């Protein structure tokens, strides 16, 4: 009973937070008539960059995932783990790293300059797409790798024993697998690129590099035109809503990151060593070099950190911990309320998750601003708003981890519990609790790291006195104090990883093994 009430309350709160804010935004805006040419080109650019980023990520992820699936080499497991890193890496740090390699003052430009060529410039469209591929290539690679691992080894042996040619391999086994995986992966990346804000903020801008999210931000912060921000937010909401409806039809790939540690038993690995080696090296370099560049530079300049770093760290940690607690409370309420209620209830909870994925932080932020503005100074609520929006953004991922674990525990042991006459409290404390410890720890780690690195609503609401680590990093970059920015990035990465590690490890220790 209590469970259903809590779960229902969370569901309603989420609907108000996502759809309610969108409604407020829709009422506030001046409709689509308020949009000028620049706004329409922002809309076009948003759709174009999301399609291109998703296509490129998938086109590159296919050979990389296949190489990882059929080759075994020292460091393979480390590389797969590293592929999970961009997901919890603060976006602004990744952008800083990409600039260090591909930017005007980066390594490649330096080499080109030395050889007498023009320097690279990645501001605008190229930078946005490069960064989106940087963040999503690893994600898609892991999704595809999981799908590859799920193919029974026997099928490859049958193909091999029939003397199958490489093309037939693809047509018989890998093609069908990709056909069922790629559409979902494409939609997922498309959605992530639609709602990605920090990348556009840091390297986007200009007539051929402004996304809708960035346009909302600019209308808000630079033009102080709330009506136009609301109109743009409405467009953003409509696009994301449409894509989410599509995502409901095409199941998004499920990943829990488990079971990626074995190598597929395939006999055709040796034939493709060179080709696979090429792709693995490309992917590894693309991942490692930018991060290495920032961290290396940052560590050398750690002593030049501005004194405000301490206050910013404390603010970021506070937001992250509050947001983690909120996210866990919501995910647990939803899982416990709906995990046992049949397919319909579960897809309702799942839809809420997708809603969190599709809601743009800036749309929610704009809506809350509009709601609060008549009564109070919205800036004063920057911290609680940031914490709750972050919690909502992390919710889909926490649900993906927690819901199956709750379902499994009830499925396996509910009858035993009933036949033993085990009470509610002892079940929660001695059975459910220990068995959920690990997924709770993992999702808490995700939520904390995501919140720690977030630079969405906070950029919208923050007054100059308020500092979080990502905000401080962004402001340092804007002032071209790149050494200090890199040093801040080190602090931010260390704190994010530490939070993730601490929660995840807390879940693993004395965890239920099963």
């Amino acid at each position, binding site marked *: 009973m209590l469970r259903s009430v809590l779960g229902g309350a969370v569901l309603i709160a989420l609907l108000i937070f996502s759809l309610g804010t969108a409604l407020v935004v829709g009422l506030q805006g001046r409709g689509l008539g308020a949009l000028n040419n620049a706004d329409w080109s922002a809309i076009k650019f948003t759709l174009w960059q999301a399609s291109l980023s998703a296509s490129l990520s998938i086109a590159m992820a296919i050979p990389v995932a296949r190489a990882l699936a059929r080759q075994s080499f020292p460091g393979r497991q480390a590389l797969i783990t590293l592929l999970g890193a961009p997901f919890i890496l603060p976006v602004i740090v990744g952008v800083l790293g990409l600039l260090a390699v591909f930017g005007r003052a980066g390594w490649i430009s330096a080499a080109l300059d030395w050889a007498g060529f023009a320097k690279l410039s990645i501001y605008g469209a190229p930078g946005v797409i490069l960064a989106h591929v940087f963040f999503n290539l690893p994600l898609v690679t892991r999704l595809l790798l999981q799908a590859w691992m799920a193919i029974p080894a026997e099928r490859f042996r049958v193909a091999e024993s029939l003397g199958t040619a490489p093309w037939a391999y693809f047509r018989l086994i890998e093609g069908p697998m990709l056909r069922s995986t790629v559409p979902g992966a494409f939609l997922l990346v498309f959605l992530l690129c639609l709602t990605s804000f920090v990348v556009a903020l840091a390297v986007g801008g200009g007539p051929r590099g402004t996304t809708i999210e960035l346009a909302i931000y600019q209308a808000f912060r630079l033009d102080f035109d709330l009506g136009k921000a609301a109109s743009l937010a409405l467009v953003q909401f409509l696009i994301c809503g449409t894509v989410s409806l599509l995502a409901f039809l095409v199941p998004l790939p499920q990943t829990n990151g488990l079971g990626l540690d074995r190598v597929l038993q395939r006999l055709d690995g040796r034939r493709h060593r060179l080709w696979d080696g090429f792709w693995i090296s490309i992917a590894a370099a693309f991942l490692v070099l930018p991060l290495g560049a920032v961290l290396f530079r940052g560590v050398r300049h750690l002593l030049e950190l501005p004194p405000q770093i301490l206050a910013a760290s404390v603010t970021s940690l506070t937001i992250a911990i509050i947001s983690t607690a909120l996210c866990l409370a919501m995910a647990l309420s939803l899982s416990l309320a709906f995990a046992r209620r049949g397919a319909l209830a579960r897809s309702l909870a799942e839809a809420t998750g997708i809603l969190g994925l599709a809601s743009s932080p800036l749309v929610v932020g704009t809506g809350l601003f509009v709601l609060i503005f008549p009564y109070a100074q919205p800036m004063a609520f920057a911290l609680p708003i940031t914490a709750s929006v972050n919690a909502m953004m992390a919710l889909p991922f926490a649900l993906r981890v927690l819901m199956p674990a709750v379902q499994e525990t009830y499925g*396996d*042991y509910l009858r035993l519990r009933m*036949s*033993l*006459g*085990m*009470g509610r*409290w002892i079940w929660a404390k001695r059975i459910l609790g220990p068995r959920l410890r690990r997924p709770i720890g993992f999702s808490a780690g995700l939520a904390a790291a995501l919140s720690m690195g977030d630079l969405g609503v906070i950029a919208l609401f923050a007054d100059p006195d308020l500092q979080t680590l990502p905000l401080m990093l962004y402001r340092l970059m804007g002032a071209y104090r790149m050494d200090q920015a890199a040093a801040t990035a080190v602090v931010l990465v260390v704190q994010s990883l530490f939070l993730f590690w601490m929660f995840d490890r807390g879940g693993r220790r004395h965890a239920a093994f099963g």
Partner: protein
Amino acid sequence: MLHLDRLAVQQGGFSLKADFKIAVGDRVAVIGPSGGGKSSLLNAIAGFLAPRTGQVLWNGQPMPDHPGERPLSILFQDHNLFPHLMVLDNVAIGLRPDMRLSVSQKAQALAALDQVGLSDKATAYPRDLSGGQQGRAGLARVLLRQRPLLLLDEPFAALGPALKDEMLEITRQIVQQAGITTLMVTHDPQDAMSFAEYAILVADGLADAPAPIGPLFHEPPAALQAYLGRRAP
């Protein structure tokens, strides 16, 4: 005495009818084709499945609604043990589901473990036990609960032939000694013969009354013959 009084249960589109009695201390095999309703029968007796009509009586009294209050223990095919609890705790929850053991209760649990030959595994975890030892731990819990009725839902189906025979023999000794009335679902006519005195044929949504197992297998009625094929023991 277990009495299924004009019992009918429904699960999805499937329904099962049963109307018979089983005397105290009898060992009864429940056999029949997959999907015929064997597990539904056990679930109805255990209280996981509420009857549509009729009732389940024990010694003339209707059984309580809640499965935990019924005078019975049940062993499933798997998931009988919580993987993160020690063997001792797994056994002791049969006595104290709230896991607050007194000294004498702990001694009782240890004695039950001793009886099934697991006295040295009290502090081990289920993952450290072999399949047969896990089965024994489940039996220790049955012993400890001292409920007069035992339901076995193919608990040893995953074991090898020799080990399965051994477990059936241990189970038979235990229930015989304690006078526990036992219903065992099984797929294997051989197992049914070696363990039970009576058999219930469950097919096409109908559970027959128990019949002495020897004669039943010797001259099987049509439905049983169809199920057994030429594999009659």
